[in-house]
């Protein structure tokens, strides 16, 4: 007992000698040579309110390389190569500032850039002369306000996507509230996409432009963008007729709900559900369908679709080094598709800062009532598609990920706080296979 008293007195003396008060203003002179953090100057002249300036909270870079092969291209009516290479990149910057009542404002600015090449896209022109690739650019902006006392949030977002045959503008409102004990959170997101599909038809359905003189031996090519070129025997373009391509609208409205709950010190779950309604031109104008008579046409789908996905996530910390990340989703829509998705990822923490995460994802779906393979549709069918996205199939996706997040930064660079690399192999019973490798870098 004497030893205990002496220990307590000794400890309190050590604490007293080591304690010091925080200086009123940060010392800019101690700023690192390179930093994403702007030191904050406290304004002590206003009682109870200390505004803090805008600062960069985090920058994330994600890049993926995707390669795919298959034999059921919808552009050629459900047959033909589905070889695709896609290089996707995304940059997200999070800016943070604190407003009145110490409420946190976050401005998330994102920019995405995809470049893809698709072997089947060449066959939008019947002779294979159409442009085989394309790019997509998609910026986004989101502002979120977090209440310092309740932890609740409110925010709005805007989104744009542009590629040669599709333009999209999106808006969203999102809101969340925590339970009184902060162990649960309920969230709602209302989202709308107002899109325009450029009506690029297969070449055989594009009305021939008036060409007054066609030299003998010339070739006429219709490009995927609807232009008609006349090429002479020497390979020179001698006539170029630009079509004014019409567009058709597509609208998507969704309400997303989520509820997360901490169950105990090792387990937490989240329930998710969406209500999605789409209207307008819901197919793609360059997807062919071949009837059982041998005649080809353009796919025709209903002008409305209602989707209902319901999902649950469950994360469990097993032991001291292993985490179980499980997910299940049931999906149904009024086109007749019913599907199940189940995935399990098992991060193993080799050290507190390095983990290896093998994963497996299973997916199955029933066919939409408007799908039939090549030359299986009847001309009297009201709607028809041979896009194998709507067929019956099962799929498996498996791979492994690595995550490094050392306290002194990746490769000793303090601001480079996280690096993730992930590889996955995807196969479908439709014989489509693909591989994807992704890299994510986080900077603070």
């Amino acid at each position, binding site marked *: 007992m004497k030893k205990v008293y002496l220990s307590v007195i000794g400890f309190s003396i050590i604490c007293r000698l080591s304690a010091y008060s925080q200086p009123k203003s940060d010392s800019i002179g101690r700023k690192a040579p390179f930093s994403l953090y702007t030191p904050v100057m406290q304004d002590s002249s206003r009682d109870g309110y200390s505004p803090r300036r805008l600062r960069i909270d985090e920058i*994330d870079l*994600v890049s*993926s390389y*995707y390669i795919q092969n298959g034999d059921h291209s919808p552009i050629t009516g459900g047959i033909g190569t589905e070889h695709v290479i896609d290089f996707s990149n*995304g940059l997200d910057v999070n800016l943070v500032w604190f407003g009145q009542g110490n409420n946190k404002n976050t401005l998330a600015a994102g920019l995405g850039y995809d470049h893809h090449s698709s072997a089947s896209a060449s066959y939008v022109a019947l002779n294979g002369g159409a442009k085989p690739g394309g790019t*997509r650019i998609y910026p986004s902006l989101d502002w979120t306000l977090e209440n310092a006392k309740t932890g609740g949030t409110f925010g709005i977002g805007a*989104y744009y996507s542009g*590629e040669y*045959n*599709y333009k999209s503008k*999106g808006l969203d409102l999102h809101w969340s509230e925590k339970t009184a004990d902060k162990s*649960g959170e309920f969230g709602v997101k209302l989202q709308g996409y107002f899109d325009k599909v450029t009506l690029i038809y297969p070449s055989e359905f594009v009305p021939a432009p008036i060409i007054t003189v066609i030299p003998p031996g010339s070739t006429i090519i219709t490009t995927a963008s609807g232009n008609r070129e006349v090429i002479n025997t020497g390979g020179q373009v001698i006539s170029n007729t630009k079509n004014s391509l019409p567009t058709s609208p*597509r609208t*998507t409205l969704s309400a*997303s709900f989520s*509820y997360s*709950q*901490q*169950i105990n*010190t090792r387990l*937490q779950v*989240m*329930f998710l*559900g*969406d*209500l*999605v309604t*789409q209207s307008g031109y819901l197919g793609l104008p360059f997807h062919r369908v071949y009837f059982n008579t041998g005649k080809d046409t353009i796919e025709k789908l*209903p002008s*409305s679709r*209602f*989707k*209902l*996905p*319901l*999902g649950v996530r469950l*994360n469990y*910390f097993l032991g001291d080094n292993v*985490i179980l990340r499980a997910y299940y989703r049931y*999906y149904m*829509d*009024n086109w007749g*598709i019913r*599907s199940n*998705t189940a995935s399990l990822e098992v*991060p193993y*923490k080799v050290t507190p800062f390095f983990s290896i*995460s093998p994963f497996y994802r299973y*997916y199955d779906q029933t066919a939409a009532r408007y799908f039939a393979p090549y030359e299986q549709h009847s001309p009297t069918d*009201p709607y028809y598609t041979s896009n194998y996205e*709507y067929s019956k199939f099962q*799929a498996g996706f498996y791979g492994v990920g690595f995550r490094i*997040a050392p306290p002194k930064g990746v490769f000793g660079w303090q601001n480079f706080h996280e690096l993730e690399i992930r590889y*996955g192999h*995807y196969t479908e019973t439709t014989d*489509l296979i*693909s591989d*994807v490798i*992704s890299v994510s870098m*986080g900077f603070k």
Partner: protein
Amino acid sequence: MMTTSFIHQKILILHKLKMINQFVKVLACILLAISATSCVHLKEYQKSRLNDSEMALTNRKVEKNELNFQSYREGASGANAGKTGGGCGCN
């Protein structure tokens, strides 16, 4: 032709109403399950495992493009904080 299309639209609306009915029933079951769950009230110092970055109930940032690729190839989407529809010509 018009009659067939009109009937088909009516069938789609009926399917939609059935699905909304099923959604409400599932939501009611989930709320009942949540209220019946014996969740433990946790203090902040007990949340060290729950606050681990790999325990977050969200997709990993590195999965962002994978979710897009899956939505291009599969008929289902949504309920995963990813695409629900629109935004690209894929769905």
